[in-house]
């Protein structure tokens, strides 16, 4: 009964989406208020129906209803409750349901909170959003029904891939989808604006919060995935340039560019066509990622069971959405010309350079990801594109980007004073070189690679300049201290947000540099009682316990004691687990962090003489990689709370902007 309810709700959602995608659009063309107003209740109803379907599937998982094929294939009664729930989106069908749930969630949010949007723009944007829903709901109902029954029902299920049974990974997909599906909202606004043939500062102001929300969620989602890889794959790495990682990273790069170019549209009414194009491209890259993962045309660990029929369907959707919107763009782009002029050295100029570098990086990652496929089609023979290629293209693009990132906020709009800005940054430059030199000396001088000092210098350059810009904004030195808190409170939240986001980026860069350059790694066979010195720590293997029972696995657990200068600082318990259904081995690294670095311990295979292979790492600054991402997300959140994005604000703001521009 419950699965059928879910399926009926999905079919009803499809019908509602059909209505939502057509009638408001026609209404907007005819200026028919009643037809346009239909978009709001339709968007809410659509979300409600999809939520019912999602709830139905979740209830099948929670109660282990093995008459549902999807539950049989991906669940098991022994699985802890958390993973029964996360199992809902740990498979192709369920994750597509989550996909449309989030798509309709954004639509419903615009319907609820977009009271101040012009009715035409709102009706069109919600109609476009529903059009995407129609495509994906059809996809689910026709090729990937999660509610298919199986008769007779088996006694138990096949279980979830043990690698996915991890608290960090349980919530990685929802955030990832909140991110890249969330870019659909900017896309829908872009298409609505193209249909209207009008893009202005007010439009940018309406689009920015949705882009910002999606960007923050995607940043968090990617960071969670990377963190998961760091602590479960068990060899201290955190990014592998796998096609599916790239699939989420490309929309991030493009979305970051969009976030910045929308500011230029909002403040200066320039880069309008480019911003629309970025909105289209960002969501198209999300769709492309979905296509790559679901069709199996590239091989990756993340791939769901692939099926060419599904591939054809998603490719058709990609063709309609991206092809159609780029065609519309080609016809309408001419109308978007003009807008504010600016000198190359200006805030706009810096943001444009940031956009060019980000878009180039996204393009290069796309090329690297698809190169095996293109080479195959052109009979160029066998090509493999691995991490070396990506690292080689990524760094030369990121270094200038970060250098500009520090200077940009110091430049004025329209015409900036580069010499003046650099003059104010002289002290930052000196300080970052000093920090780099100090860190290089601390890490052993000539023994540590020179580029590491460069990375630290870059991170300090960005971080310190972000703080300096903030200090100048709140007049930390120029005005009396007693009004300081008021000045901080009065400053635009989006400015605080920028400081946090840029500073978070600096933390991440420092983390990447430190953990790559100064990692110490010790691999050896250890017997109980053996000690190994790792960096400034001494790790002692006390014992290894075998056959420890877990809910659906058995584990070997090692007891390590970490000492520094003879003082015990941590007990570390890495595990090796053997899951029962499906049978598969996983490693659980034990990590002790002091926020300046991670002591990272993995227990490997036993050797015949009663010892164990152990891998002991000290990863300096590794926690900063993820900490930086959290700071960036916080910056996004703070910026989102800016009063000019709040409900009721856009209308007043719109007139204010036209006055200022």
């Amino acid at each position, binding site marked *: 009964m419950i699965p059928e309810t879910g399926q009926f709700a999905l079919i009803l959602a499809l019908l509602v989406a059909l209505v939502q995608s057509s009638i408001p659009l026609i209404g907007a063309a005819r200026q028919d208020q009643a037809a346009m107003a239909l978009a709001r209740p339709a968007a809410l109803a659509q979300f409600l129906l999809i939520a019912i379907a999602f709830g139905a599937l979740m209830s099948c998982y929670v109660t282990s209803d093995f008459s549902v094929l999807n539950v049989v294939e991906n669940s098991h009664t022994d699985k802890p409750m958390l993973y029964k729930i996360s199992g809902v989106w740990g498979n192709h069908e369920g994750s597509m349901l989550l996909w449309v749930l989030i798509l309709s969630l954004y639509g419903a949010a615009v319907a609820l909170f977009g009271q101040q949007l012009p009715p035409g723009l709102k009706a069109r944007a919600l109609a476009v959003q529903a059009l995407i829903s129609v495509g994906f709901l059809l996809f689910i109902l026709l090729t990937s029904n999660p509610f298919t029954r199986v008769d007779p029902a088996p006694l138990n299920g096949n279980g979830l891939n043990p690698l996915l049974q991890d608290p960090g990974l349980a919530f990685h997909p929802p955030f990832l989808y909140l991110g890249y599906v969330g870019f659909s909202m900017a896309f829908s606004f872009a298409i609505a604006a193209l249909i209207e043939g009008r893009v202005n500062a007010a439009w940018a102001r309406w689009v920015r919060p949705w882009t910002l929300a999606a960007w923050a969620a995607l940043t968090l989602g990617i960071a969670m995935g990377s963190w998961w890889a760091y602590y479960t794959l068990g060899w201290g790495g955190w990014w592998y340039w796998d096609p599916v990682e790239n699939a989420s990273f490309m929309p991030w790069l493009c979305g970051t560019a969009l976030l910045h170019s929308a500011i230029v549209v909002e403040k200066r009414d320039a880069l309008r066509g480019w911003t629309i194009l970025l909105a289209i491209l960002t969501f198209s890259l999300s769709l492309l990622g979905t296509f790559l993962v679901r069709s199996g045309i590239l091989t990756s660990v993340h791939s769901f069971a692939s099926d060419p029929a599904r*591939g054809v369907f998603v490719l058709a959707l990609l063709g309609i959405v991206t092809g159609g919107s780029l065609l519309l763009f080609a016809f309408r782009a001419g109308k978007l010309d003009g807008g504010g002029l600016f000198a190359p050295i200006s805030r706009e100029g810096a943001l444009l350079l940031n956009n060019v570098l980000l878009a180039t990086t996204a393009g290069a990652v796309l090329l690297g990801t698809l190169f095996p496929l293109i080479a195959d089609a052109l009979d160029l023979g066998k090509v493999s594109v691995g991490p070396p290629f990506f690292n080689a293209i990524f760094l030369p693009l990121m270094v200038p980007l970060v250098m500009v990132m520090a200077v940009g906020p110091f430049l004025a709009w329209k015409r900036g004073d580069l010499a003046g800005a650099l003059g104010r940054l002289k002290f930052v430059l000196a300080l970052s070189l000093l920090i780099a030199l100090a860190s290089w000396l601390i890490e052993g001088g000539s023994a540590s690679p020179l580029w590491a000092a460069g990375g630290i210098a870059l991170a300090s350059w960005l971080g310190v300049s972000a703080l300096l810009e903030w200090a100048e904004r709140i007049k930390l030195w120029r005005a009396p201290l007693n009004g300081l808190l008021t000045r901080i409170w009065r400053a635009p939240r989006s400015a605080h947000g920028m400081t946090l986001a840029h500073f978070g980026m600096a933390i991440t860069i420092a983390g990447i540099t430190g953990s790559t350059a100064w990692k110490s790694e010790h691999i050896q066979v250890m017997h109980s009682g053996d000690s190994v010195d790792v960096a400034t720590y001494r790790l002692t293997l006390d014992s290894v316990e075998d056959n420890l029972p877990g809910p659906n696995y058995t584990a070997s657990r090692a007891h390590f004691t970490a000492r520094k200068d003879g003082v015990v600082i941590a007990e570390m318990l890495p595990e090796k687990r053997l899951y029962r259904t499906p049978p598969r081995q996983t490693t659980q690294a034990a990590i002790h962090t002091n926020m300046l670095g991670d002591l990272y311990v993995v227990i490997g295979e036993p050797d015949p003489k009663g010892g164990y292979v152990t891998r002991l790492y000290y990863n300096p600054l590794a926690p900063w990689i993820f900490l930086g991402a959290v700071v960036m997300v916080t910056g996004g959140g703070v910026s989102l709370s800016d009063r000019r994005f709040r409900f009721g604000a856009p209308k007043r703001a719109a007139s204010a902007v036209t006055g200022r521009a």
Partner: protein
Amino acid sequence: MLRWPVLVPLACFLLLFGFFTLRLVKMNHGDMPNDITTVLIDKQIPPFALPPLFEGKPALTSGDLAGKVTLVNFFASWCIPCRAEHPLLATLAGKVNLVGIAYKNEASDARAWIGAMGNPYQAIALDRDGRLGIDFGVYGVPESYLIDRQGRIRYAWKKPFDPDEIRDTLLPLIAELSK
């Protein structure tokens, strides 16, 4: 007014769309992305000499493979599918001369990986810059090549092994070549 620069994104997209369609059409005809045929089947293996992964072990040359049925397995520590394949390689113990090639890998990373995952190989060589990979036509990792006693490549498997492939194809072929 249409001006050509605004058509560039559309043109690029259509090009990509074409590639995707071609790929899907090929997949519909049974040509999966992993099924890469090698032109080297029944050809002599390329001559090579590679340093050992673990210092103190002998170097590996093409001559060392003569006279034994050998499975050459390309792997890398940065390759996640290799992790999935790795336990299956241990099941080949005693049935074939298993040689591992650490492909485009830093020696320390590959050693760490072998240390953690176990060593099913009789010998492991380091192909740090992927030079031997080019000669074998390695497309990605993991890839495996079965070589007969005369040093000819008899079989290539250009993706991670699965138990069915090992049972149904690889082991019977090894048995036949070992007669």
